[in-house]
């Protein structure tokens, strides 16, 4: 049955506007990367230019854009049903609501994943256009990209839970924005920086020494894994049991 729900979601998604933000993010990364030409920084001889360029390209992307993007995707995924009174029709059909929630969550995670892969392509494009001769640090890049993807899963689950319940497009986005903005200040703090959920994409994408996707192991297991399971469980439970009025 999950298969059929996934196929029906695909029919809704394939002609919608969701593809626009998928392309916008990496394009933005390319744009800001190519513009940064004039700042000639003092570099120690022997630094890998890729490793120098990568944090500059992804810092604002992972700090602000990725959390907000997960919110935009979640709202767009739920928009089909909100606009045409579709929730009522959908819940009348003999489809398990849990499967419906998981199908939307799966699509949401896949969209974020596609955006991350396109970001990797964008980084490579910027590097080649700047004619960087150093060897490409694949381990660093892949760990950062995959880390950013996994770190945004709890945020995506939260956004999906809120968007499925509220009809307005802007209200879940407002909540997302309210929590995203303080990350600029939070990442400066050593005690709270690693644990703040909206700062996790930034922590994960900027290289540090840790093994678990650049995040502190404690933060990874408690916030990402534990948080994801908690939010998905609660969101799915509430979604399956709510009374639909609109």
């Amino acid at each position, binding site marked *: 049955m999950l298969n059929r729900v996934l196929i029906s979601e695909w029919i809704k998604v394939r002609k919608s*506007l969701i593809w*626009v*933000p998928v392309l*916008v993010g990496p394009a*933005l990364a390319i744009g*800001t990367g190519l*513009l*940064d*030409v*004039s*700042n000639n920084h003092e570099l120690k001889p022997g630094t890998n230019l890729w490793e120098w360029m990568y944090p500059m390209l992804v810092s*604002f*992307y992972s700090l*602000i*854009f990725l959390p*907000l*993007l997960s919110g*935009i995707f979640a*709202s*767009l995924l739920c*928009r089909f049903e909100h606009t045409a009174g579709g929730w009522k029709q959908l819940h009348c059909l003999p489809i398990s609501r849990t499967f419906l929630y998981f199908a939307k969550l799966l699509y949401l995670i896949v969209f974020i994943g596609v955006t991350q892969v396109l970001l990797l392509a964008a980084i490579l494009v910027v590097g080649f256009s700047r004619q960087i001769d150093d060897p490409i640090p694949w381990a660093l890049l892949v760990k950062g990209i995959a880390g950013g993807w996994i770190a945004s899963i709890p945020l995506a689950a939260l956004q999906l839970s809120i968007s499925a319940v509220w009809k*307005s*497009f*802007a*209200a879940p*986005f*407002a909540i997302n*924005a*309210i929590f995203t*903005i*303080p990350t*600029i*200040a*939070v990442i*400066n*703090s050593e*005690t709270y920086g690693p644990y703040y959920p909206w700062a996790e994409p930034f922590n994960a994408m900027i290289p540090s020494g840790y093994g678990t996707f650049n995040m502190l192991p404690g933060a990874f297991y408690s916030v990402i894994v534990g948080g994801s399971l908690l939010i998905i469980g609660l969101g799915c439970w509430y979604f399956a049991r709510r009374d639909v009025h609109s």
Partner: protein
Amino acid sequence: MIGRILYSDGLKLKRTFLVLLAVLGPCGVITVNGIRYAMQYPKLVITGDDNWGRLLGNVHLLLVPTLLLGITLIASLLAGMEHQGHTWELLLALPVSKMKLYLGKCAWLTGLLTGSSIIAAAGIALLGYFLGIEPIPWSKVLMEGFDPFLAALPILAIQLYISVMVANQAIAITFGVVGVILSMSYHGLPHWLPWVYPMWTTGADPSNVVPYLGTGVVLGIVLFLLGAAFFEKKEVK
């Protein structure tokens, strides 16, 4: 006439959380900075150093994205209300000048954000006072509270125009988010781009302010009027 338009828009706004958002934005920025300063006091407040400059710089870094996201959200909600309730046809069928309708929405957007700026300026002053950083440079504080908003008037006009013209608010919000990212990378971007104006107009560095502020205000008013003129010509489906 315009008074009644403003009043009717106000009635619609009463049921939304827009006013709360306009108040919460600057309060949140001040609170986050307050917490950060409280936790890292010795590192951030050094006697003899330019503490006000550092405080204003830190607040500015948070205030501009909040302002831009707030503009995006408020514009989207102002226009989205009409799109969602399908009330555009009703509104435009009334014997009211279309330009005045559009300018009424512009006025509410500007008014709400002016309130935000007042709260921001007051908050910065209070924050500095409670942190014990004397004396309060009032001109810089007022500059920090109001100038990013005034310099961002073109962005206000553009966001409102997109939200009104395109029914799907996702496009307007994505555009707004892209604008926030653009504003954060203001060093590499051309100086005439409207999105870099707010970041340059900070109270911490008053030398840069006047050209960006002036261009922002003038361009903003021009874009508001242009938007109203285009709105008048628009056909309603």
